């Protein structure tokens, strides 16, 4: 399941948030490479909520959880 979740997250980020020319690994910081900023994180949160039916409150969100494809996948798995 986790592999599928990871691929869906990667696809969403690649198709909707990232500059098409940027390539990134599952462990690379999406902040350092400029893929995510403070607005795009909210967009990603909406996707995760709608796609995986998970609940994410702004008061509980840990910004580090969104740093890499791996950490986002782990967050979703934890919340499901």
């Amino acid at each position, binding site marked *: 399941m986790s592999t599928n979740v990871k691929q869906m997250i990667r696809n969403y980020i690649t198709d*909707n948030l990232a500059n098409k020319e940027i390539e990134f690994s599952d462990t690379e910081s999406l*902040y*350092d490479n400029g893929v995510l*900023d*403070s*607005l*795009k994180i*909210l*967009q990603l*949160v*909406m996707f995760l*909520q709608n796609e995986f039916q998970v*609940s*994410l*409150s*702004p*008061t*509980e*969100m*840990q*910004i*580090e959880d969104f740093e890499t494809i791996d950490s986002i996948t782990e967050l979703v798995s934890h919340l499901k």
Partner: protein
Amino acid sequence: MVFSEEQITKRLMAKEFAMQQLNDSEVLKLDKKERFNVLWKRCADFGLFSLAVPQEYDGMEEDILSIVAIMEGLGMGVDATNILFSANVHIFAGMLPILEYGSKHNKDSFIPGMMEGDIICAHAISEENAGSDIWSLETTYEEVEGGYRLSGIKNYVTNAPYADLYIVYARKKESKKFRGVSAFLVQKGTEGFEVGKSIDKMGIELSPMGSIYFNDCVISREMMLGKEGQGMNIFNSTMEYERPFLLSYQVGIMERQLERCIKFAKERKQFKKRILDFQSISNRIADMKVRLEASRLLMYKVAEEKLNNQNIYLSSSIAKLYISESLVQNSMNAMEVYGACGYIKEYHVEEALRDSIGSKIYSGTSDIQRNIISSMIE
């Protein structure tokens, strides 16, 4: 109707309070600072600053829907923004973050005074190169013996010139972007902390705005709000409240504006008939009514969603965008209905128009709201 009978009663009480206490012509003659102080104290005595406070601090612990009802009632009673912008910033961007994230020490130290109106709060985020783009903060902090040292400048801080307490966001020195953003409570008079003079603005004249300066300002450890690195969460949480609910009194203002326009259009005659009977006037008033009712529904929807702990990222931006733009359009329409009378200060119509423009800028501009909305539906 979304409100209970009790909430409707509270809205009416708020309207009566605003009409009698906030529009007081004697107070309106006072100079700006004195006027602010008198009206602020009246808001505190009315219980406005106790609305969101839990009962353990002797607050009223009202839910967000009731608060929206009361704010709408206040707007229904005032001729223009009056003290309400500053009061709302104090509540939504000052008291709520402290109640949500503050330690017991923070709450015990500040909440009672904030409720009484003795402590005025400001929320400082914007900088020369950071606002909605919070990751670009240049104000920094570093750990020093016994606390933290803050350095940097914040701009466009509402309430800053009169405030006693400031919520300040800063990035840990040498940290990357968001990673080290934390929030702090800074008291007026702290060494190394200075408040600039009040900046003249287009509208919302009773709410002072200014810059604040941190020049090696050292604060104690207990003045960090929440945990280290939690600044983004606190900011997002604060914006979820501030962005839509700062406009709840504006819905009331739109209603009062419309009522006054109808009354004026019935009384003023041209060519031996009421100007209301001219279709260009009646159509304009119909458009104002449609915008008012749509704004009201959006406000209630987002309040109900928040009450039910739903995610309001999208709906709060939609509400903020629509209500603020409707407010500006209705205020412009009011000017057109009033004609020359609207252009002179006596009727407060031009004042309301000037005030309304700010709503498209504060808490994220209309452009930013459109960016958020479009990004979330793509």
